[in-house]
């Protein structure tokens, strides 16, 4: 691989940003109701610069009140999950690490369900409870995964899987026993769904995403060293314990953020970082931003498909990412073994 320079990072991101823009345009154009490309472009121009010929009211509503918020939500969820996945993979030096494998997503989901049961009318409670659920879970898994005072990757992953399965059982229990009204629609949400507008403004969610992802990015050089081994990183002067703590917290915040607005969109945190590693190499200084953009592209595209393949009925986007992600993951696995 070529050496990583700021210019290379910038060029990579620019190329991916253009791809993302294309994906956004496709996602805005596709839907149950046909919108011509001319209408789409004139609508966008009018929206940005203020224009002369306004679109029909219902087309405006469809483009900017229904599709655009959903596309933005897809960008948010995709970027958050991919960065969280890449971070967990570096911390654990384990390619299978992913918010789902570690149980962090299930913890966030449990938080959401509890908050809906207890405070059904407080919108902000949902993402806060998801953060709390994710953070508590990763803390528990972190301590369960320690052996002889050291984090042990295998033990950690096992602890995560078992915790996830325990939390799923609790979720099933709650969904069966809680009065059906309070958790109505949850089954759909659990499969990963972008159709529900988040209870908190998108701008705030994006601000949290940017701050958290930037925090992780500042440790990118340290993560590179830690990938070669924690002892080695320690000898090279990396404050391993602090980096790990910061990145664990940041990554679980990202997971909580994604789960609270979209439920369980699987495989993004697993597949996107791998795909980006194949494209741009394993250096975290370029991999992290590439994964963020790649995750956004993947989810925006998957959701465009979810909205259109059986239109006017919509599929949960989680079903689409799993259908595309699982075979890709198997392919990666086979390639690794050769």
């Amino acid at each position, binding site marked *: 691989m070529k050496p990583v320079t700021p210019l290379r990072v910038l060029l990579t991101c620019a190329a991916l940003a253009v791809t993302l823009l294309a994906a956004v345009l496709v996602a805005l154009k596709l839907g149950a109701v046909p919108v011509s490309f001319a209408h789409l472009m004139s609508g966008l121009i009018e929206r940005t610069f203020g224009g002369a010929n306004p679109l029909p009211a219902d087309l405006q*509503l469809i483009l900017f009140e*229904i*599709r655009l918020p959903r596309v933005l939500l897809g960008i948010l969820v995709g970027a958050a999950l991919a960065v969280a996945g890449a971070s967990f993979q570096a911390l654990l030096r384990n390619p299978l690490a992913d918010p789902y494998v570690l149980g962090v997503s299930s913890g966030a989901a449990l938080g959401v369900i509890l908050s809906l049961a207890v405070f059904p009318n407080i919108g902000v409670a949902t993402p806060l409870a998801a953060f709390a659920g994710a953070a508590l879970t990763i803390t528990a898994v972190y301590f369960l995964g320690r052996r002889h005072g050291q984090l042990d990757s295998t033990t950690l992953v096992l602890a995560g899987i078992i915790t996830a399965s325990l939390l799923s059982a609790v979720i099933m229990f709650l969904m069966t026993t809680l009065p*059906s009204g309070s958790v109505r629609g949850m089954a759909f949400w659990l499969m990963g769904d972008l159709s529900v507008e988040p209870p908190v403004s998108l*701008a705030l969610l994006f601000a949290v995403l*940017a701050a958290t992802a930037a925090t992780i990015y500042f440790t990118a050089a340290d993560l590179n060293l830690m990938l070669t081994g924690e002892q080695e990183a320690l000898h090279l002067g990396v404050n391993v314990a602090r980096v790990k703590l910061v990145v664990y917290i940041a990554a679980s915040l990202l997971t909580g953020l994604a789960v609270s607005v979209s439920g369980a969109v699987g495989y993004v945190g697993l597949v996107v970082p791998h795909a980006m590693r194949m494209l741009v190499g394993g250096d975290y200084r370029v991999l992290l931003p590439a994964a963020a953009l790649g995750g956004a592209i993947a989810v925006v595209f998957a959701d465009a498909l979810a909205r259109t393949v059986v239109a*006017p*009925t919509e599929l949960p986007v989680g079903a689409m990412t799993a259908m595309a992600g699982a075979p890709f993951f198997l392919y990666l696995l086979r390639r690794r073994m050769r």
Partner: protein
Amino acid sequence: MLAAAAALALALASSPAGAPQSPSAKPAAATRELTDEVGRAVRVPLEVRRVVSLAPSITETVFALGLDDRLVGVTDFCDWPPEAKNKQSVGEVRNPSLEQVVTLRPDVVLATKAVNRRETVEALERLGVAVYVTDPLTVEGVLASTARTAEVLGAPERGAALVASLRARLENLRRRLADRQPKRVLFVVWHEPLISTGRGTFLWDALRLAGAESVVDTEQDWPRLSLEEVARQQPDYLVFAGDHQMNLRRLIRSLGERPGWRSLDAVREDRVVVVSDALNRPAPRIVEAIEQLARALHAEAFAEAERGKGKRKKGSSGVARYSPFRFSLFPFPFAPQASLVVQRHCS
């Protein structure tokens, strides 16, 4: 770099909020404010010309009111009356396409709490679409909801007439069953896992009006049961709803061989009743299904009256007892009979 991307995203995210707000589908026509059945305030035009239904029961209700010319959108599940299938679909009840709904420019969207998601209603509300939510919890509630739906659509007189005739039929039924001991039944909503209905649903109430008493007594709306519990209760009858479904016929034929089910007296002694799936829907047709069930459970009460009138053959009174044996001889013995029952009630 990430920050730059985030800034761009922020700009994109905030621009819709700053721009001129959601262009309402049409210029402000004369409207009135209603309170729907879940207590939400809904503003609908005085004259409602375009209606989207988000549930099969609502589609049926609008058709029963004779207001189907105003129905511009239905769901994939709206299969009754057959003409409903010719209407534009907006997708599935749990997850309809909001864009499709908006494109149809409805004056009001009708939803029902039991099957639609709150998220769908809230999303439509944010898009400036009026959504009226019904929530019938008893058969009386179904009638009241029918009357209110007619009122929302600006045709209260049609609602009043329809409800009066339905109420008369129920009253007739009540008198006929007045001195009958209710039959203890298990209503099977789903068989695997076994799901029945609880005290808070319109179905529970419908069973009661048909002279049946559910052996399941619980606060939960759709309780999951163990067959053990059912075997302990030994209901007089098993009741299924869904007359035209092949799968249901096959299921009922197989009950005698299914472990657990075959230990029920009702199965062994062939006391299995199938009524119209209208019983499952909180719409006017439920009265028909209630009558059908009452005839099947209390044949004597009807036989006497009919013999008195001398109009019908004895055997035709709501035939709904099927033996596995009969099925094995001839696969569809009840199809013509069932449709006979339905026709009779329709006329």
